[in-house]
Each structure stands twice: as C-alpha cells, then as structure tokens.
C-alpha cells in the first residue's frame, strides 16, 4: 500500500505538478503535425522521383535509339533524382535538420515548418526507392500484355503496373512511416517541442528519469500500433481480389 501511494505521489509530482502533462500534449501535437505533413511531402516526392527513375530504367534503351529532346530531358531528370537520393541518403537526418534550420531556411522562424520540410525531403528519398522497387518488381510480361491490349505507356502504368506494385510495397512503406514517426524525435535539436523533447524537459525539471521516459515510449508505441493496425487492414482489403 505504501509503495502504491509513493508511486501515486511520484506520478503527481512528475506529470500533474506545474501542469507538466501539458508539455506532453503539446509535444504529441507537434510530433503528429510534423509526421503527417512530412508523410505527404514524402509521398509526393517519392511518386515523382520513382516515376522518373523507373520510366528512365524501363524506356532507356528504346528512347536512346530514337534520341531527341524527350530522352535528354528524362536523362537529365534522372541524374538530378540520383543526386538527390545520393545526398539525402548519404547524410544523417540530424545533420540535414541542422543545416536546414541554421543555414538554408535561416529566414523561416517557425521551427515546426522547417522540420516538416526536412523530414519530408528525407522521407521522399526512401519512399522513392520503395516505389521504384515495387514498379520494377512487376513482371515485364504484365507490361507487354498491357501494351498489346492497346494501352499506351501511362495507361499501362496506371491500370496494370501501379496497382500491383502498390500491394507489393505496402509493408515496406508502412515500415518507412514507422521509421518516420520515430525519426521526428530529433526535432528537439532545433528547439522544437516534440514528444521526446517534452519527456526530456519533464526529466530535466523533475530529475526523475523513469516515468517521463516510459510515458514517452508508451505514447510512441501506441502511435505505431495504430499505424501498423491500419496498414494491416488495408493490406487485407487489397488482397481480397486475389482469391
């Protein structure tokens, strides 16, 4: 019993006193905002880059023979995409965040916005490769079949390749989103109050490590659990037509 009241006292001290729980709410809000927006940015960038890279890979030979502006343009876009992937995947996201915050987006004083751009750009690189791997994994015969049915390149992509590719990449994509949620925990580096920083702050003020850290861990776990459940459900629905 005494142990229990002690625990209740510590709970009250750590979270209730000075309204410290409000930091967690604010932090959770920022974490969700940053994750949601960077997820969208990431997917948009991912789609664009993956389309460029896979169309180049698929059509390189035929287009090269034909030559012309189209080939040069696609080839240039492909090179730019490659540089983007190289830089983003080749540097730690913390460093990218610091560079964006202190150097490139110096004039933007809203830290949360900088974090959204940063994590969006970062996630885009990984999502692009995930999408591309999905597109390339669909058997070449599917593509040929589409073309023989009279679909043009884009129609074949839209009606035959992409739907199959999407199903293949869904688990990997879900994995990327989980990584993204947790990756936002470094936002505290640039003074943003995210979930991790909120726990950190409570720890700094109360000098108790256990409760704030466990609370933060549980909240992340809950977020990821919801996300995993949702993608699992989507996966099952998409598999229905396979029967």
């Amino acid at each position, binding site marked *: 019993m005494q142990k229990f009241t002690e625990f209740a006292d510590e709970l009250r001290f750590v979270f209730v006193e000075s309204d410290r729980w409000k930091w967690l709410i604010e932090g959770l809000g920022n974490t969700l905002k940053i994750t949601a927006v960077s997820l969208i940015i990431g997917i948009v960038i991912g789609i664009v880059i993956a389309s460029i890279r896979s169309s180049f890979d698929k059509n390189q030979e035929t287009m090269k023979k034909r030559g012309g502006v189209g080939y040069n343009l696609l080839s240039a876009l492909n090179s730019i995409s490659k540089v983007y992937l190289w830089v983003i995947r080749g540097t730690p996201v913390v460093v990218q965040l610091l560079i964006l*915050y*202190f150097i490139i987006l*110096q*004039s933007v*004083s809203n*830290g949360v916005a900088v974090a959204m751009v940063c994590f969006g750009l970062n996630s885009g690189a990984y999502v692009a490769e995930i999408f591309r791997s999905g597109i390339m994994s669909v058997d070449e015969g599917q593509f040929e079949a589409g073309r023989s049915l009279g679909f043009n390149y884009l129609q074949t992509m839209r009606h035959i390749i992409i739907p199959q590719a999407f199903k293949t990449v869904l688990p990997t994509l879900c994995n990327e989103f989980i990584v993204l949620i947790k990756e936002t925990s470094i936002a*505290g*580096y*640039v*003074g943003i*109050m995210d979930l991790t*920083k909120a726990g*950190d*702050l409570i*720890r*700094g*003020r*109360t*000098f*108790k*490590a256990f409760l704030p850290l466990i609370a933060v861990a549980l909240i992340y776990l809950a977020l990821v659990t919801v996300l995993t459940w949702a993608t699992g459900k989507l996966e099952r629905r998409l598999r229905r037509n396979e029967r």
Partner: protein
Amino acid sequence: MKKKILSIVSLVLIAVVAVSVFAACGNNNADTTKKLTMATNAAFPPYEYKDGDDFAGIDVEIAGKLAEKLGMELEIIDTEFGSIVGGVETGKYDMGMAGMTVTEERLKSVNFSTSYAKGVQSVIVLENSEYKSYEDFYTGYDADGDPTGVIEGLKIGVQQDTTGDIYSSDVPKKWGFGEESVIRYKTGADAVSALVAGKVTAVIIDNEPAKSYVAANEGLKILDTTYVEEDYAICVAKENTELLENINKALAELTADGTIPAIIEKYIPSK
C-alpha cells in the same frame, strides 16, 4: 564424437572468457585510490569546456584540486545538463559540477555544497537591436510594478534546463516571459546560432559563456542590465552526507589559501 569435442571446446572457451572478465573486474576493484566521478556538461565556457581531448575550465580545475584534497582520483563524465541532477540523485555520479545554481526544485532531489562562484544571467541581443534591457520585452507593468505581458512575437533562446530556461519560461508576473516565448536548445551555442540566424529575439544565458559567445560571433552584444544573479554550487546525493561535508571542508580550505580565487581569476580576469 565430433559433437562431444565441439561441446567441450565451447565449454572451455566460455570458461576462459568468464574468468578473464571476472579477472578484469577484480583488477578495477583493486585500484588503490577511490574514484570521484563528476558529471558536467562541457559546453559552458569558461566553467567547463573541451580543450582538445581534455576538459578545461573553472569547475574542472576546482574539481581537480578538490579530488586532490580528498585523496581521490577525479573522473569527469560529460553528459547533458538536464541529466546531471538525476544521475547524482540515483548515485550514478558522485557529484555534479556544471555552473549549477541552487534552486528549490533541485534541492528536492539533491543537496548542494557551499557556493564556490557567482553567476549572472545575461541577455545577448543583436548589436543593432533596439532593446536596452530585458524590461523592454514587457508590454507594461501593473500597480505593483510586475510585468503584465510580453511584446508580440518575442522569442527567447535558452539552453534547456539551465536557470536561464527556468526563470525565463516562468509567467510574466514572476519576471519570466511565458512558456510560449521560450525556445529551448540543446546547447548555449545552438541558442546563439539561432540568434545570429534571426530566429530568436534574445538569448538568456550565464554571463561568462555569454562573453565567450559574443567574442566569437560578430554582431552580438550583451545588455548592460543583467537578468538574474545567482550562486554556483556542487550537487551531491542526499544520502552522501559524508562526501558533502568533505567537499565543503575542502572548498573552505581552497578558498582560504587562495586556490579557488586564483583559478577564477585565471579564466575571468577582473581587469
């Protein structure tokens, strides 16, 4: 047969590893001098900072003399400022020494030695700033002379968990600027970079590191009016009263024989 040999060989290997590990532990325990672990945040010049691979600064030198007096071997552990008090409380470190001010919150968790140095919280702003004093950050004062609110868009950069953070994130009524006006950075240097980049209006930090930052960055100045004045002390776990007594005794001796004043003078010349 082969299996048997394999299992014997692996058993022998495990035994060898286990013995050598225990032996290594034994060696450590056999050390004659006891260790005095000091937790600090070595990003706070001139009190503590990294000088090449070594630590330097007022706290580091005083701790060295302190360990000498106590007949112990000093071990410095560089950690985040916010983790020091918690680590000392749980006995992870023997003492915390990081230009740390005695506050009521901290006293709930640890004991503090007598003060060995005085600290002043200063306000750093851009050189062309229109602000003359931190009082300019308030919009008005009530009948008692307490601030009623802060100017719009005010952002104060601080190092997380430092006294500058604690004081300035309090409500205006208590001479803070309010939670929403404070941006907390991991280090003082980050806060200053944010000021240079124009992301915050001012940085509130201890005067001595403030001077180093202003010297290192062009276009910054320290306001003449200081924000808060405070005493620095060493924190020790509540149960460890023996160490606290010894530290206090040693500090008194080191102050009396002029060692501590000389160390402070070395880093902060009084002109």
